[in-house]
């Protein structure tokens, strides 16, 4: 017992100052069935009273092997599968996949298709952000915004349904363009929706932005700096709220984004409140983009010349787009056959979830819920 290194009890206790009043840490299990983990995320929390000492995320409850499925499907057959990853932003997922394959095939979607893609993707971004706002506010205890956002999201889903027949897993785009021409009155529907939703966003802000409790619950909660974000690969509104001006739509314009004039909202503090403000501003910017696009959809074909059997040349490609939750990338390796040799998805939710532990360490239990909400994860995408 003279040598401290062989003293087992010393090793176990570490350098904690044990006294007779010492308390033990409490390990509690949050999820996978928990109302605030947005699906089936399981977080093991180590608590000292209310303070979080550390977390461990257990994921995989929704794993379906999407990437493996891709290897056994043709390029066109795999297209609907991507909708099931981030099921609240299915249109964005489809866009990323279609564009990646187009890049591999060296095909350009026609301008009309690109405009339709931009309109639908931005509508989808709105829908995704609305769902985020509702659930995030619900986690923090404000139950009413959820119903407001779901009411308004319904209008977007109606447009999707009219366009392609599906509301959630839309499968709206095809490799090489769009399958469906816009329906009669599409522009009118979209314009009406824009006029309808603009005051609604003010309505959400009225309930929350200056609400004292909301500000106290979100300011300085889950802080993360721009540097840490970059180190962890965190993208999307979380990165931008930390003051990094990175948006794939501006940095590497795809579809028709270079035609539109819009701003990238950024925050300064990288806390939950800034992320909230950034997303709210992004919703307004999306409206701005749609308003520009809907007035000048060019005439012309909606489908590029793509062979019936898609057989991309041997090679590999990485293409990323700005999905509502961050940078969504597809890495496809082609061996010249009709099926991808390997397909890898860079899911923003999965990468952003890494930051959870760093963001909640030293904060309170209630903040874990707020941070999970503010990361805006979708477990379908985390687990794939």
């Amino acid at each position, binding site marked *: 017992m003279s040598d401290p290194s062989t003293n087992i009890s010393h090793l176990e206790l570490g350098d904690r100052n044990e006294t007779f009043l010492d308390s033990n840490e409490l390990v*509690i299990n949050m999820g996978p069935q928990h109302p605030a983990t947005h699906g089936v995320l399981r977080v093991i929390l180590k608590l000292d009273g*209310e303070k979080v000492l550390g977390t461990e995320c257990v994921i995989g409850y929704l794993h379906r092997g999407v990437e493996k499925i891709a290897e056994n499907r043709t390029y066109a057959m795999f297209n609907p599968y991507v909708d099931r990853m981030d099921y609240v932003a299915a249109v964005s997922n489809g866009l990323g996949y279609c564009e990646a394959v187009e890049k591999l095939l060296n095909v350009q979607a026609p301008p009309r298709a690109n405009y339709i893609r931009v309109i639908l993707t931005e509508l989808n971004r709105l829908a995704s952000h609305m769902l985020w706002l509702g659930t995030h506010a*619900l986690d923090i*205890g*404000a*139950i*009413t915004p959820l119903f407001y956002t779901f009411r308004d999201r319904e209008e977007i889903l109606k447009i999707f349904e009219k366009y392609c027949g599906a509301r959630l897993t839309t499968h709206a785009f095809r490799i090489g363009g769009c399958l469906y021409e816009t329906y009669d009155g599409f522009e009118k529907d979209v314009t009406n929706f824009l006029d309808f939703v603009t005051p609604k966003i003010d309505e959400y802000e009225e309930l929350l932005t200056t609400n004292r409790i909301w500000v106290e*619950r979100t300011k300085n909660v889950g802080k993360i700096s721009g540097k840490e974000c970059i180190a962890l690969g965190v993208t999307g509104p979380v990165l931008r709220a930390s003051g990094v001006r990175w948006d794939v739509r501006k940095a590497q314009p795809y579809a028709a984004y270079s035609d539109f004039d819009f701003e990238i909202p950024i925050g300064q503090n990288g806390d939950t409140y800034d992320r909230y403000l950034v997303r709210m501003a992004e919703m307004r910017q999306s409206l701005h983009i749609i308003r520009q696009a809907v007035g000048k959809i060019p005439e012309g074909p909606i489908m590029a010349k793509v062979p019936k059997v898609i057989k991309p040349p041997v090679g590999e490609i990485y293409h990323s787009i700005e999905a509502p939750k961050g940078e969504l990338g597809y890495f496809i390796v082609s061996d010249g056959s009709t099926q991808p040799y390997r397909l890898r998805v860079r899911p923003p939710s999965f990468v952003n979830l890494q930051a959870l532990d760093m963001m909640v360490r030293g904060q309170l239990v209630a903040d874990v819920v707020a941070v999970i909400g503010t990361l805006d994860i979708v477990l379908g995408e985390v687990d794939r």
Partner: protein
Amino acid sequence: MLDYVTSYLRSNTTPGQAGNLLWAFIYIILIFLGLSVAVIAMNWLERKILAHMQVRLGPMRVGPHGLLQPIADAIKLLIKEDIMPAEADKSVFWIAPVLIVITAFTTFIVVPFGPTHAVTDMNIGVLFMLGVSSLSVLGVVMAGWASNSHYPLIGALRSSAQMVSYEIAMGLAVVAAVLMTSLHGIGLYGVAHGAVGDGTLSMIDIVKAQQDQHAWFIFKFFPLGLIAFFIFAVAMIAETNRAPFDLPEAESELTAGFHTEYSGFRWSLFFLAEYSAMIAVSSIAVTLWLGGWLRPFPTWLTGETWDLVFSLFPAATFLLLALIALVGTLRMPKHPYFRVQTLGLAGFAAVLALIGILLLLPPVRDRIQDIYWFSLKVAGFMYLYIWYRGTFPRYRFDQLMRVGWKVLLPVGLGVLILTAIVGVLL
């Protein structure tokens, strides 16, 4: 025997003071029934009002406009399997909800629905009420501990910390109100009034003091009464664990807090206790600051005509409700499927109209008036509870503690001291 029964009716004290046990018992039964009905009604109203705030309809299926939903829920809860965790401390697990319900109901002994409409009037009424209602924290801790599970334990710890710290602010506000009963001072209207009695802790005498001073205490020493009322109004929400202070049962963090492991009948006891406690603290607030059973504008709108007009309010309310139910009946879809519902709603309208007509009769009218105004004020608080729930996010634990100790407590102390100074000087 008959004499024993009727003798009380001619007296003008509460049955407890008159020593009439029979009438005390009758009052207890009435309060118990009234509370149960109020909780059931509150259940329906909360769901409906909250639903309409959230642009949805709320219960619509069970009975017309979901009127029978609370009853269906009650039946479901009663016949549900009552699960007790294997590792739970059996006896404590049982005692906890019972204890909470008992404390919630016991407070109503001293609630004055009218000058004589209370089970009894203690000279320490306020103290009794605060004391008994603060016992409920014991039940919460017991429930959390006995469940032998992490979430309920954290919920119970939060709850006990919260209830204990808000009780202090609450107590200070109450002391300020009690102080006002003995201080003559001036009312809101700048009219100095003659001397009034000594300070009192009796619930009935507090209301009587407001009557004599011609000022509800919320308006007294403006804005001191208002601030004290505000402190109490905040603390009472925290005390009853309702939004935005519903941390102990923050469902997004702790699933259901201290009653996570409870189900069926025992859970329904918690539910009953929560709503009774809400009504109980609202009753204290109404008694201390809003003039209890006194009708509004007692100094401005005086005279026989106004007395008559105000005494017609209860009947008018019920007739209005009957009218609403009647309109609802007429608007029901004309389909054989809805026949039972339509008839039920028509019956409901008829019952409401009957009560309304009954309330028009002068003897009933005079007796029921006090209870009506008291209930109306309490109902206002109930609406506020629902409104808060629909509007506010939830406070975090440390913020809740900060609001309690660093804001409400110092302000409460300041109000108390200022009330004393102002009261003595004026």
